[in-house]
């Protein structure tokens, strides 16, 4: 995001809108381009009385900031708005997470701190060392250059409001994964929000929650529930709780 110095009056109205504190006010507004994650909320809010905020046309790799920070952009690789992954929201149709498995999501930078892609790589490679398979329909995975979790080198110096690392493992590997997350926690220079996805929660929810607590993680009382209404047209599929879809419905 840029400031039109010829229009800006230095009123400061835009400054609190920035989620990463990239705007400073002197005679005019100044945007720290290293901190700016191109989320566009300062511009989109309409708070500037003189329309002095200007969205430049972004090119790669700078564009990666907007793809991960601007909720209005659909990620080109997944077609999904926002952070660009369907994860469990459509599991009743996709079967991405099947009984006996759990999904894990690590959203670096959230809530409200932001992250470098270098930190995303630190976390991803720690998990990649476990031999896990990252979710293909995920924007971070689509930045990876290998199965170990290394990212395209040109994005490492870029920043985003948040980025989600996403993968699925057999339920019995969850303690090992959570231990690795704990180790990586000391290595990243940001915050991250952690989640675990459980198919067939009526049968497996309590056990998975127990595994999380034994690994030293509290399970919050509020979360998300896919209610199982999704199904493919013509009455096909329509899986029961946590079950895989009918033939031809590969997950992810």
């Amino acid at each position, binding site marked *: 995001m840029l400031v039109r110095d010829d229009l800006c009056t230095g009123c400061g109205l835009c*400054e*609190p*809108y*920035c*989620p990463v504190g990239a705007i400073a006010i002197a005679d005019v507004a100044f945007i720290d381009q290293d901190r700016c994650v191109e989320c566009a*909320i300062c511009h989109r*809010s309409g708070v500037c009385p003189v329309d002095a905020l200007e969205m430049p046309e972004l090119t790669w790799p700078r564009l990666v900031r907007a793809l991960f920070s601007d*909720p*209005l952009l659909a990620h080109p690789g997944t*077609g*999904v*708005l*926002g*952070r660009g992954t*369907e*994860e*469990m*929201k*459509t599991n009743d149709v996709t079967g991405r*997470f099947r009984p006996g498995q759990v999904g894990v*999501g690590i959203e670096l930078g*959230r*809530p*409200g*701190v932001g992250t470098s892609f270098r930190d995303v790589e630190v976390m991803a490679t720690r998990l990649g060392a476990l031999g896990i398979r990252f979710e293909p*329909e995920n924007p971070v995975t689509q930045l990876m250059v290998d199965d170990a979790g290394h990212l395209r080198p040109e994005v490492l110096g870029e920043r985003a*409001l948040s980025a*989600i690392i996403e993968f699925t493992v057999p339920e019995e590997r969850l303690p090992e994964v959570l231990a690795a*997350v704990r180790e990586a926690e000391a290595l990243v*220079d*940001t*915050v991250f*929000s*952690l*989640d675990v*996805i*459980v*198919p*067939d*929660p009526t049968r497996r929810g309590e056990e998975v929650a127990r595994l*999380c607590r034994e690994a030293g*993680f*509290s*399970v*919050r*009382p*509020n*979360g*998300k*529930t*896919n*209610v*199982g*209404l*999704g*199904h*493919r*047209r013509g009455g096909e*599929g329509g899986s029961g*709780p946590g079950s895989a879809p009918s033939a031809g419905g590969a997950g992810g």
Partner: protein
Amino acid sequence: MTHTLHRQGSDDLARDYVVLVMGAKGFTREGAAPALRRCLEVILRHHPVNWGDGRTGNTFSRSREEILAGIGDNSVIHGVFTDPDTVARVLADLKELDTGMSVVVSGLFDRVHPCVREAGLEPHTVEFSLGVHGRVERLPADPLVVQIHTMCGHGMVSYGLISHLAGEVAAGRLSADRAAATMAANCHCGVFNPRRAEALISALARRQAVQPSGSGRGTAAP
């Protein structure tokens, strides 16, 4: 995206539920727009306190007509409710509609799961939040600021804005409901709960009136 997960709060979470509807890429998304529109019309019949579409915006930033006209196959529809009984009725109506779209409810599990079963459904998949980790000292010291912020999972309601608006409310220059509406407009998808936000910003303003603070942010990010 996990934009309706990780909502922080206390007892007021009992008045915070988000219903989300979307299609699945490669399965039910292609050609989903009419079905999503019908689902949104169901949601609207039950008077959500906020609603919207990730493609277009929310009721605090766009008109009803603009949002409905903008629905496309990759729309993600949202409605925010403040009681589980209404959520149960929404789910029953969506079940009867039977569009094949996927539906997710965010909220307290011990309130949501009875709603799901009351609608004749069974929880298919859940997502647990295991909280925030890493450099947590960078978060605002006042938990109310974080509780307001986390109602927008895309982070569009900044800590700085929350603290600024609380200061305006404390100074009597802005009402709490106008502050909530300002924040809700920023949360593009329409998952921000303006009723909760109004109560929280009022509480934050009372604290600021007693003890004026700065941005409310902890140690700045690098």
